[in-house]
């Protein structure tokens, strides 16, 4: 009797297992900034991007059911960690996407590794995510501080901007960006004259700008993002920074920031991004779909949102190949095995440390008279190939890479 019961149980288990393999359920959680300084660069736009990825994937893979949920981490690491725990333990979320704000992202990377789920980072900048703090459960899409520093910093030093002063956002992201850029500047023969660290979400930059002005540095490097960058550039124009012969280097500027500044103020600004909505046909088509969902006048998608789309799509491919999303480490290993391919970033690879390699572009903001239609913001000044755009593996000190 016991034997019969035992084999019946085994049969049921097998049957369930078989059924499970056919119908795969995946839950993607977009953890982002919904209402504060990064909300227009990520936020609801990132949620839409994840939904578009799910939609596209389900069309070609009817056996995969993808659900997208979202939450606001309010730029606080403790709130973000709580949501992640709740998602992983109670709500059966398999993967967390986006997470702008490096401070929050570093915390999420740890939680994800502990629970053996997947973190596809597109929002955060710190290169530590694929450096000393790398985990076998993190994949970092879109950009990082090293790539920004290398792309923008190198180009500017080579054009004669060899003395720098930094306005740095006083948290993990700003510090990483300043560190990486200063290294590039000195390596290329430039000099860093000083830096001032301002609290995140500062509205008045005039006193910091005065200090930058007094430093007589040729280049004022903005190691900040979102609303902070906008305020600094806007007030810099007023204080005659550019008229006085100094130049801004926006180390992290997104297309929505340029929209907020207006071309009149932003013209001539040079910075590095890995994606721009008007780059090619694939991007333009995707942007049309995105804009229809976003349904707000004058909004353009940022590279973070594109990264959420591409990252989610690639994650789903890996899950479908494995037939299950249960083992986060295995899914990430699969993501590293298959090459990336999507209409936004093209073909690329995921490196052993979790870094996604794709090309980057040096953009310059157009003059108002050069802009032909809404959202026509950039000239492409240079293309940095994928193998040069990101930090060499050996320099990152990621424990995964050293074996």
């Amino acid at each position, binding site marked *: 009797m016991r034997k019969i019961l035992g084999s019946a149980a085994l049969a049921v288990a097998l049957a369930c297992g078989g059924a499970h393999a056919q119908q795969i359920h995946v839950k993607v959680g977009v953890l982002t900034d919904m*209402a*504060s*300084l990064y*909300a*227009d*660069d990520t*936020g609801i736009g990132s949620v839409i991007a994840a939904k578009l990825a799910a939609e596209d994937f389900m069309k070609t893979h009817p056996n995969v059911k993808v659900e997208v949920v979202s939450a606001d981490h309010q730029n606080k690491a403790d709130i973000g960690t709580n949501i992640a725990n709740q998602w992983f333990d109670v709500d059966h979320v398999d993967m967390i996407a986006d997470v702008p704000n490096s401070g929050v992202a570093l915390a999420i990377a740890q939680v994800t590794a502990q629970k053996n789920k997947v973190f596809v980072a597109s929002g955060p900048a710190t290169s530590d995510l694929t450096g000393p703090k790398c985990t076998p459960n993190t994949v970092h899409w879109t950009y990082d501080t090293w790539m920004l520093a290398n792309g923008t910093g190198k180009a500017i030093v080579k054009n004669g901007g060899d003395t720098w002063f930094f306005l740095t956002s*006083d948290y993990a992201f700003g510090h990483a960006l300043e560190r990486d850029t200063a290294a590039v500047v000195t390596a290329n023969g430039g000099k860093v004259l000083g830096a*001032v*660290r*301002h*609290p995140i*979400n*500062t*509205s*008045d930059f*005039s*006193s*910091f700008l*005065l*200090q930058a*002005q*007094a430093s007589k540095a040729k280049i004022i490097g903005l190691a900040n993002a*979102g*609303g902070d960058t*906008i*305020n600094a550039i*806007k*007030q810099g*124009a*007023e*204080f*005659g920074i550019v008229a*006085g012969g100094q130049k801004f280097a926006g180390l992290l500027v997104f297309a*929505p*920031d340029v*929209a*907020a*500044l*207006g071309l*009149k*103020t932003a013209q001539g600004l040079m910075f590095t991004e890995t994606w721009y909505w008007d780059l090619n046909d694939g991007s333009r088509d995707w942007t049309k779909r995105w804009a229809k969902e976003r349904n*707000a006048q004058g*909004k353009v998608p940022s590279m973070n949102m594109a990264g959420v789309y591409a990252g989610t799509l690639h994650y789903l491919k890996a899950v479908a190949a494995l037939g299950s999303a249960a083992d986060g480490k295995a899914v990430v290993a699969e993501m590293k095995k298959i090459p990336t391919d999507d209409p936004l970033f093209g073909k690329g690879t995921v490196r052993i440390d979790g870094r996604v390699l794709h090309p980057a572009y040096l953009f310059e903001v157009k003059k108002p008279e050069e802009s032909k239609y809404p959202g026509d913001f950039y000239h492409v000044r240079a293309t940095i190939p994928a193998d040069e755009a990101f930090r060499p593996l050996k320099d990152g000190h990621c424990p995964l890479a050293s074996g």
Partner: protein
Amino acid sequence: MFEVFGIPSTALFGQLLIGLINGSFYALLSLGLAVIFGMLNIINFTHGAQYMLGAVTAYLLLNYAGLGYWPALVIAPIVVGLLGILIERVFLRWIYRLDHLYGLLLTFGLALIIEGIGRNYLGTAGLPYTLPDSLRGGRNLGFMFLPNYRAWVIAASLLVCFGTWFIIERTRLGAYLRAATENPALVRAFGINVPRMITLTYGFGVALAAFAGVMAAPIYNVSPNMGSELIIVVFAVVVIGGMGSILGAIVSGFGLGVIEGLTKVFYPEASNTVIFVVMAIVLLVRPAGLFGRRT
């Protein structure tokens, strides 16, 4: 050129002036709050949202009506002030007799609603608004470059602050107002329409916030969050000055701007916190604020 604690004096003077400019915004905003609290006994947490509405109205006027900075400086406060009057008539007048807490919660809720609507339609990255052509450029003072616009901000703010103080403390109208808050029944017995006067006072306080908003539009990021970022600091300024004290709001507004400016030179990381440290100290030493009356 001499040095103070390792900082060149020229840099120090520059920072002092910058502090005064930021203080102008604190003073303008805390002035409106003080007027409203002094006359209506309402802690107006919608003030930040109304400041934001001033800036957003300026943006809308420019882009949809083709009206520039100067017309906006007059029209936006009137429009937002009328909106304030509506809020007073519909909501606030029912709760004057209740505890302060009810007014605080009601106005806080209104602020959340207004800002939420703003975020929904405008996003958070901000709206472009440039300097008026007539105030472009600046002059070199030797120790710093002073943009013309900032000079105008100080002048306008001082003028408005002094004007408001003068009306409330030195004119007959101000005397009626102050009397009405002390003893509304008696003032009404003299044939003065007290409820209307209170409504207009609220409208005026709100218009002051909108005025500050238009002043801020060309230099700060115009976004639905701009008010909530500032309002906490401004409340600290009002508490330091003494709740409801007009002179206290003005003096502590300018004073704290300067203190904050100096912090940005000596220890920039603390520049967001220094005002609250000052607030804690003032509350320990003088619980009613620097210029407040003990009740």
